[in-house]
């Protein structure tokens, strides 16, 4: 049973990581990265490393995508164009 779960998680991780590489738009990439973080957390849980899974979930699927989103926004906004932002 464990082996099946681990195999599924590995496949999901590989698929999400490949998708992250092939997406060219940073916005979509950050969402795929978030998904990759979730799958990695699943994998770590299945190989009995819940401490690492929690770190991965917090950093990989929340903080990193958020930082990418904010950076993209800053770059896209450019000088003097952000009057409609909140």
């Amino acid at each position: 049973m464990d082996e099946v779960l681990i195999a599924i998680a590995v496949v999901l991780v590989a698929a999400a990581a490949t998708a992250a590489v092939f997406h060219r738009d940073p916005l979509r990439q950050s969402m795929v990265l978030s998904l990759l973080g979730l799958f990695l957390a699943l994998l770590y849980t299945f190989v009995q490393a819940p401490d690492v899974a929690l770190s991965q979930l917090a950093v990989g699927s929340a903080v990193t995508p958020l930082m990418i989103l904010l950076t993209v926004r800053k770059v896209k906004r450019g000088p003097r164009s952000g009057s409609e932002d909140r």
Partner: protein
Amino acid sequence: MSRPVRLWVFLVGAVLVAALYAWACFDLPSFGGDHHPYGDRAVRTALAQHTANAVSSVNFDQRAFDTLGEQTILFAAVLGTVVLLRQVRGERRTDPTPAPVADRVRWFGVLMLPVALVVGFYVVAHGPLSPGGGFQGGIVLATALHLLYIAADYRALERIRPVGLYEVGDAVGEAAYVVTGLAAVLAGSAFLANVVPHGTFNTLSSGGTVAVLNIAVGMEVACGIIVLLARFLDQAVEIEETAEETGAR
């Protein structure tokens, strides 16, 4: 360096790394085996130190010095971000205007904020007992606060987030770790040795310095990530270049 030379340097390096990596992998114990010499020793020591979570025992007791290094990496990274993303000449701050938030999003934020905060504190406090600890709990706490940005707007977040205070908290958390280590030296032992009474097994106060260092890390990580995201948010929402300076550059 010309293009073909660079390619060759890369190829030689890549082949060497691949060969060494494959060689090392063949010497690894097989996946999921029964023989765990290091794990057995680590668990035995964790139980002797009354720390229920063996991983926390390794992080904050048996290898506490490594964790000091990791914590300092985060501290230095946050410090670097603060310096790099500061407001410079030719940039000005504009007040962000509130944007309409969908009712469901608002309710989600309002309901999840207290839940996320409690989970964060729980994970930090139970570091010596169950999976999690200062690092994981600290990040949960830091991200929980930003639910307010999603539920309301940036100004609501700024009101409960005096960045200066969190910068102090970041430094205090980092310093508390070093001070705890030095206290062990003063007590006549080694730096970061677990000299505090270990308490009753599987209770919140067990583990001796594991519990103390865990809270120091929790404080440093929570405050550090909040400061880090505050700098990013400032840049994304408030700070903008003025047109004249951009042209002059």
